[in-house]
């Protein structure tokens, strides 16, 4: 029991619950009305998935700067497929997922081919994707595509938005992958101790490529959520996703050095960030305070983690 209480996830869960309750009280329980709660959860889906997309590369000690722009690119591309190419929505959805995975695969291959830090490689691909994302439709906006897809984006089951459920399912799948599948365990083993992993027959190159491909695939899922829930897409999508993609896993206790992940932590951190966001709109606070607060929270979370490690006599 004590070991549960002392985890980072538990701390985050308590903070999230308290914060949610406090906000509910402060808004005269407006937060709990169907409409507000629905919007709260609907726009939580994207930060969760984008945070997970970053987390899977952090798991092997890499970074993916292209997640945000890739999400935008996949979203715009699927918009093009539906509106300009007239293809049905399921094709566009699959294409968005495939596109994300392929770009991720390319990222991974470039990392092992150039032997250069993933940070720089994805910096390059991010720049390229920014151009491509714009190249699809310029500054134009795609809207009025597949009513079915947009309905999916607005639908709710028992008061819970379907896109949020989708994000939860993705989170569970990612958790399952890292916990219960052999490739997932291999990824984490590689992230935790690359040399030991190699002595145990785990291919370092394969782990790197797999992590980047998964990250791209998750960006593809994020794109699908955007297309469904936002009802329109344009070339600016993804610009403001990069920093939150790092904020969620870092607050959630994921180690930048690799080998240690937390799906629960990442999801809870995304929830917290969303909570700050909603408070801002509820109380009409300057939008910029949110950034200030998130910055403070990220730093605070990291310092707290460091402090905890010191108290418990280091990581070992």
């Amino acid at each position, binding site marked *: 029991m004590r070991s549960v209480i002392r985890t980072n996830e538990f701390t985050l869960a308590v903070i999230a619950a308290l914060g949610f309750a406090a906000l509910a009280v402060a808004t005269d329980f407006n937060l709990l009305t169907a409409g507000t709660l629905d919007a709260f959860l609907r726009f939580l889906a994207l930060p969760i998935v984008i945070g997970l997309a970053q987390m899977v590369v952090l798991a092997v000690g890499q970074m993916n700067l292209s997640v945000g722009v890739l999400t935008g690119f996949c979203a715009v591309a699927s918009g093009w497929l539906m509106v300009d190419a007239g293809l049905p929505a399921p094709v566009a959805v699959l294409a968005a997922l495939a596109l994300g995975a392929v770009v991720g695969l390319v990222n991974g291959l470039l990392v092992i081919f*150039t*032997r*250069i830090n993933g940070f720089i490689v994805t910096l390059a691909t991010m720049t*390229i994707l920014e151009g491509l994302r714009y190249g699809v439709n310029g500054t134009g906006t795609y809207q009025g595509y597949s009513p079915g897809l947009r309905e999916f984006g607005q639908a709710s089951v028992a008061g819970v938005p379907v896109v949020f459920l989708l994000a939860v399912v993705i989170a569970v799948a990612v958790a399952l992958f890292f916990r219960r599948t052999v490739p997932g365990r291999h990824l984490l083993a590689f992230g935790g101790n690359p040399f030991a992993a190699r002595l145990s027959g785990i291919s370092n190159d394969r782990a790197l490529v797999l992590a980047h491909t998964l990250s791209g695939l998750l960006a593809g899922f994020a794109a699908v959520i955007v297309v469904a829930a936002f009802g329109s897409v344009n070339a600016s999508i993804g610009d403001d996703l990069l920093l939150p993609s790092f904020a969620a896993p870092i607050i959630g206790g994921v180690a*930048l050095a690799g080998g240690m992940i937390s799906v629960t932590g990442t999801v809870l951190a995304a929830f917290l960030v969303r909570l700050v966001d909603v408070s801002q709109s509820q109380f009409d606070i300057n939008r910029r305070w949110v950034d*200030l607060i998130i910055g403070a929270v990220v730093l605070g979370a990291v310092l707290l983690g460091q402090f905890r490690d010191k108290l418990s006599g280091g990581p070992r």
Partner: protein
Amino acid sequence: MKTETAPEAPAVPPAAEPRPPARALPVWANPRLGLLIVIAVLVVLFSSLTPAFLDPRLTLAPLQADISVYVVVGLAQLAVLSLGHMNMAVGRMAALSTFAMGLAYDRLGVPLLVGLLVGLAVGAGIGALAGLLIAKTGVNSFVVTLALDFGLLGLVTILYTWATGGVSFAVQPSGLSALRFDTFADYCMGEVCGPRIPLVVPIAVAAALGVGLLFRHARLGREILMTGSNTVAAELSGIPTHRRVVAAHALSGLLAALAGFLLAANNGAFSANIGESFLLPSFLAPVLGGTLLAGGAVSVLGTALGATLTQVIYKGLNLLQFSLEELKLYIGLVLLAALSLDRLRAVLAERRAVSSS
């Protein structure tokens, strides 16, 4: 899976026989020269495609002014790459510093130079703060500066709203417009006028020379590089590594502030959006110039050439009616090509070394 083992030291190291002497790298392996050639080719290409590229007033002068800004931006990142660190808040440090400059001009009416010094001090201070956090806590520089970036992003807008009610200062300290519009051609001694070089260029050149001097010859710069090369060995060699980390980050903040000032001078306004476009170019310039993220080695000349190359591409494609976003595609491809070439070079160099031994 390949069976080669890790590059571990043999159990018994080779005896005292000297290895084949390290030859100077062949000319083609110098990334700086490659950049210079690419820049030259692009200039020729752009000028033949659109003669407007050589228009001194409309193209060349603004191009030089832009290059000046982004050379300094690149140097700001280079200052911490020397340690193997990153500064994700380079743009926002510039924004906060230019706010301080604008405030000083607006409220105190200080001369141009004094305001600049105030801003530089603020930049160095915020950089030092980041460095201190990194050195004291041992937290990854990426995380610390990322969090700082979030924080400053909020702070800068709030400060502008508080101080101006908007997003920029409506001030024009005397001398700012000269920095913005004048070139040395406007200053004549009798019949002899200067070349058509904007006044901001010497500032960037001085910054580059200063940083180059620091890392090549100054004890401080060398000790920063040694800290980046091997922190444990640096500490065991008597280098105060914590203070060197703080110094490198302070330098990064200072250069970010200078870049912010140059951009403000080019734009003619001290506004909240200064620095928004700094992050990507800050990495592009040093990386194109052959500086990697590992720390311990930097190339100031490479950074200057890297910044020049990106700005030449922007300007040239812009004249050819490409949109800003499309330009990014090409910049990214150039970066990718540069990285792949680096790898190719390394592989070829290895082959040569093997075949000659």
